[in-house]
């Protein structure tokens, strides 16, 4: 088991390196391959209508004239040990982990990310709990009576849930429950300040996000349960004289849930990297909204930072999923 953990962790580290390389390639290599000069690229890192001096400064700070391997080295070095940027009159220290520095707003990206992360985590975690509980419950009940009225109606709703775009359900929830009948708060309050208020504000966002995901999870759980409940070991469990509830939960659900862990881990990881649309719709100042801000302002470093963060979360989630899977399914540890 320990060697399995070590192997997976090692693989995750490798994966992280690959991810940084790909990110670097997207943000520094691809534009050059597409024919942009160093000047043009530098301009993208500073925003609209910069002066020639600004461009030159950015270019030298990012080392855009350096050979590629040096550029990548600086990129990695920045993340690991921070970077110093010479901004004419002053120098600015971008502390490790330096996920970038916005030359436009003169703000380090990492502190921005960390300050916004609680909002994103609140959103993702709350929604995740909601969709996991409701999705799995609906999926199990549907699977136990396939073809029943309950099954058909819920699978219909689930289909609708998957098909409705976030900006529709989100805005609708917002319109109905925050403006029409103001049951829920409008401004985000940190959990540490006022948990009730925190939940109250986030509730419509959770619901909208959970509607989408729980529909997917209900379908996943349903098909997984249908398959599992036809397995031989379920028949064995019944032959032991176990109560049907125990057969379903201890034997059926346990086996059917394992693949769902995988999907769940990836979804959560992705969501922590910023729920762009949800955060925008509900005016939550989270990580995703930061990226959207960057896009609007034509400011690349925040986008680069959020991309790196999202990749980091996915890799970590992937690792956790692997470990969870091994804990759940003893057969995995072998290989």
């Amino acid at each position, binding site marked *: 088991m320990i060697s399995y953990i070590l192997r997976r962790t090692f693989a995750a580290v490798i994966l992280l390196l690959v991810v940084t390389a790909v990110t670097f390639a997207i943000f520094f290599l691809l534009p050059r391959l597409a024919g942009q000069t160093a000047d043009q690229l530098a301009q993208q890192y500073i925003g609209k209508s910069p002066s020639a001096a600004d461009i030159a400064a950015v270019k030298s700070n990012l080392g855009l004239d350096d050979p590629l391997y040096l550029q990548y080295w600086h990129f990695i070095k920045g993340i690991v040990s921070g970077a110093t940027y010479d901004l004419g009159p002053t120098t600015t220290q971008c502390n490790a982990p330096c996920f970038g520095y916005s030359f436009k707003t003169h703000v380090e990206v990492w502190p921005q990310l960390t300050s916004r992360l609680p909002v994103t985590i609140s959103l993702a975690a709350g929604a995740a709990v909601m969709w996991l509980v409701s999705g799995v419950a609906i999926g199990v009940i549907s699977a*136990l009576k*396939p073809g029943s009225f309950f099954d058909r109606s819920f699978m219909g709703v689930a289909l609708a849930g998957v098909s409705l775009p976030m900006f529709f359900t989100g805005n609708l929830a917002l319109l109905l429950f925050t403006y029409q009948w103001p049951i829920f708060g409008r401004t985000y309050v940190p959990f540490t300040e006022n948990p009730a208020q925190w939940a109250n504000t986030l509730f419509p966002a959770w619901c909208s996000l959970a509607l989408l995901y729980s529909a997917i999870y209900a379908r996943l759980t349903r098909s997984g349960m249908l398959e599992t*409940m036809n397995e031989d*070991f379920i028949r*064995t469990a019944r032959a*032991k*004289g176990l*109560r049907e509830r125990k057969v379903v939960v201890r034997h059926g659900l346990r*086996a059917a849930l394992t693949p769902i862990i995988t999907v769940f881990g990836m979804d959560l990881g992705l969501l922590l990297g910023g729920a762009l649309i949800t955060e925008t719709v509900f005016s939550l100042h989270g990580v995703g909204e930061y990226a959207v801000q960057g896009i609007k302002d034509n400011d690349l470093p925040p986008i680069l930072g959020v991309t790196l963060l999202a990749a980091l979360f996915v890799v970590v989630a992937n690792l956790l999923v692997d470990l969870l899977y091994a804990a759940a399914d003893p*057969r995995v540890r072998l290989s």
Partner: protein
Amino acid sequence: MTELSKTGAAVGEPSPSDAPSAFLEVRDLKVHFPTDDGLVKSVDGLSFQLEKGKTLSIVGESGSGKSVTSLAIMGLHRLGARGKNVQMSGEIWLDGKELVGADPDEVRKLRGREMAMIFQDPLSAMHPYYRIGNQIVEAYRVHHDVSKKVARTRAIEMLDRVGIPEPGKRVDSYPHEFSGGMRQRAMIAMALVNNPELLIADEPTTALDVTVQAQILDLIRDLQKEFGSAVVLITHDLGVVAEIADDVLVMYGGRCVERGPVDEIFEQPQHPYTWGLLGSMPRIDRETSDRLIPVKGQPPSLINVPSGCAFHPRCPYADIPKGDVTRTVRPELQQVDGGHFSACHLSQEDRTRIWTEEIAPKL
């Protein structure tokens, strides 16, 4: 019900509500599954008895209804996804209790304690995520209000009894860490942990190698001697039947075509299908220089079971009885002698003649 009245023990027509004297008695069992294509009559009027300490082998090919029968006894058809659709009728008496009409929860309490089952493929029949020991502990604690520790001791004791080396260590293994034979032993330990009086084994050795099969059959025989339980062994292998059974029931198309003591079934089989099974089988114990004598054609559809005798389209002797009785009248089980019954329109003289003159010399 004719066949019941013919048994030596029961004189006259027993009324359906009579509790039988036999330990396990199945009367006119029918298990039908409605499907989109029609009603699948998996079991269509099956009756037999079994006493404690005896082994009954149910023999038949795939689709003959032998596994469906075993699941019906265990009450496992009511459950599950399609459980609602199953149409079951008849009676199943276990130790004086009627199971077909009984409260499902009462039947559940009997499952695992009074009747237990082992399956063909022990790898898929065990939960892959739980340790062997815990699966046995669970089986024990369903019916015994004891601590986990006590149950674990019992599990180790059972693993030891079924011949698993180092049971104290292997109790914590997962099913995939066992070999096929070991898994089937563990499965048997799990089935016997509550000392059930009826053990149903559904093709328990089909997935195993022949040397392991010999070990497992030996084990089942020994355990039966030790616990005095009744065993229903479902198999397609007549070799296994000859090895272990006291009585044999041959099924074809959801019905019993022949039933009797094992010696008589092998020496004086009374049904052309039984002859077909014996003739189809290559023998290891003697040189069969001649060709095998297969049954022609395909097994019957359980939706459109042939009229009259279900075997008539494949029976080489279907034209011997006068008229088209084989095509129109379903033969009932008739007593041959003692506990030996056969459902065939051929006269007993014809059957004896065909067997001794045509079939037996070629085997």
